């Protein structure tokens, strides 16, 4: 039974009222891009299948309509990674279970619902706490910045350790000194704040506003598995790992999410010699970087980007004139400060800087979360 929220809540099963708990709005694509988040409906039905996959878990249920017709619906839920972080397992839901789910319907009218709540039989079966990320950081020991024998900070795990950087304090580029409310996808709470985000050129501001008003629906990272290159690498929920090869004076940046991308940085000033297509005429998603240490800060300068990707959550545009200066400073054991200066005279009126922190999550490896798993 499909029940519009405005008229259906009084008729919901008591168990739903008792049991349903909110799910965090984490997902592979912006929920608003696919679902009409301005409305909510409720479905009741019997589970027919569970697809326990990234980027989103799907639960399929048969819903009996008022005319007795049975329609199969897809309930979309957060990623397998997030659900497993919160204790869920593939067998938590099984075919035959009676469930109720509430949330927004797909914009395109297909039988899909984003499950903000999902309950069965009086017991909450799907919960993902809003403070899941904070919970995962609990119990970390405070410690000073770990260092190599040469005194430079370690950006990756020490021998015998595991861990990676995650939970960025900011989810989109935003010029330092500005305060603008936005969600984890970089979607503005108020579109009138768009001009505060960065010193846009006119066309770039209008394009940014268009993408925002369009709920980020055209984001090529979600649609086509395009790499989250540029500063966007450090805005992803599923984290970043540094693999430092001191002997070769280079380090690799590995990313969870995206297509399992990586980036190579030489720390002795070398460019990426031998990089096929790494010229101004055939630029790259990750550009060409040179890196050096400035005291305790790794400074990376990158240019020759292509224009085939969004370089930030939220849809800020860039052009092939983009040059980035990134500064990585491990403030202590648990905090990595990332500051990026954007110099793109093709899209912005002046260079500008955005800064945020990431958190060290010890005891875990980068989760496997690849966009190749994507499905409609």
């Amino acid at each position, binding site marked *: 039974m499909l029940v519009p929220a405005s008229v259906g809540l009084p008729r919901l099963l008591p168990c739903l009222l008792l049991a349903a708990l909110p799910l965090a709005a984490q997902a592979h694509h912006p929920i608003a891009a696919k679902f009409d988040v301005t409305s909510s409906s409720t479905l009741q039905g019997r589970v027919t299948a569970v697809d326990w996959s990234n980027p989103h878990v799907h639960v399929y249920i048969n819903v009996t309509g008022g005319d007795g017709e049975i329609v199969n619906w897809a309930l979309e839920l957060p990623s397998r990674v997030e659900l497993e972080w919160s204790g869920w397992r593939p067998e938590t839901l099984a075919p035959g279970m009676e469930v109720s789910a509430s949330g927004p319907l797909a914009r395109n009218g297909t039988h899909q619902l984003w499950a903000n709540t999902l309950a069965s039989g009086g017991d909450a079966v799907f919960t993902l706490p809003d403070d899941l990320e904070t919970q995962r950081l609990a119990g970390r020991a405070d410690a000073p910045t770990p260092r190599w024998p040469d005194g430079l900070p370690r950006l990756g795990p020490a021998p015998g350790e595991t861990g990676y950087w995650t939970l960025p304090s900011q989810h989109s580029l935003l010029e330092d000194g500005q305060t603008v409310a936005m969600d984890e996808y970089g979607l503005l709470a108020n579109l009138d704040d768009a001009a505060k985000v960065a010193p846009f*050129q*006119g*066309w770039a*501001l*209008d*394009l940014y506003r*268009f*993408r925002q008003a*369009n709920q980020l*629906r*055209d984001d*090529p990272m979600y649609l*086509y598995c*395009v790499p989250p290159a540029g500063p966007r690498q450090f805005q992803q929920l599923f984290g970043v790992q540094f693999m430092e090869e001191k002997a070769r004076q280079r380090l690799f940046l590995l990313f969870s999410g995206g297509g399992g991308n990586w980036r190579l940085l030489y720390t002795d000033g070398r460019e990426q010699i031998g990089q096929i297509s790494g010229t101004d005429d*055939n630029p790259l*998603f990750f550009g060409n970087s040179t890196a050096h240490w400035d005291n305790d800060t790794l400074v990376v300068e990158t240019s020759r980007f*292509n*224009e*085939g*990707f*969004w370089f930030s959550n939220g849809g800020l*545009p*860039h*052009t*092939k*004139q983009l040059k980035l200066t990134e500064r990585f400073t491990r403030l202590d054991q648990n905090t990595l400060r990332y500051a990026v200066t954007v110099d793109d*005279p*093709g*899209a912005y009126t002046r260079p500008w800087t955005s800064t945020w922190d990431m958190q060290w999550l010890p005891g875990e490896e980068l989760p496997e979360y690849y966009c190749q798993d994507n499905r409609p």
Partner: protein
Amino acid sequence: MKKYTIATLALLLGFTTPAFAQQGHPLAGTWLGDWGPDASTRHFLILIMDWDGQAITGSANPGPDATPIDTLTLDSSDWSVNIDMTVKDSQSQPVHFKGEGTINDLGSQTRNITGTWSDDEGHNGSFRLERQSGP
């Protein structure tokens, strides 16, 4: 001859089109389409446009009939485009093409421009261009 020219242009395009979609300035890139006075008389058109941060520049129909675009403007308040150039029609006759169009489906990798054109002789009609996307 016309088929040969188009094939040559298409081959050339294959070597010049970047193998990725373009998410930067909405006009930058290679656009393919046609123009003409009516549905039955159409002239093949390739525009290659670029944005240097201050001005949009471009050329039409790369190859032996290539011509620079004299004026290209974009009004991002409504995504309207003005194009002023001299192009050769299918009979290789020069035409002073003054086009007014609008970018449609702006967020798509294969967005398009549709609009109308006129020349100094009082001729007019429609044109359509589609942004080419790599594989």
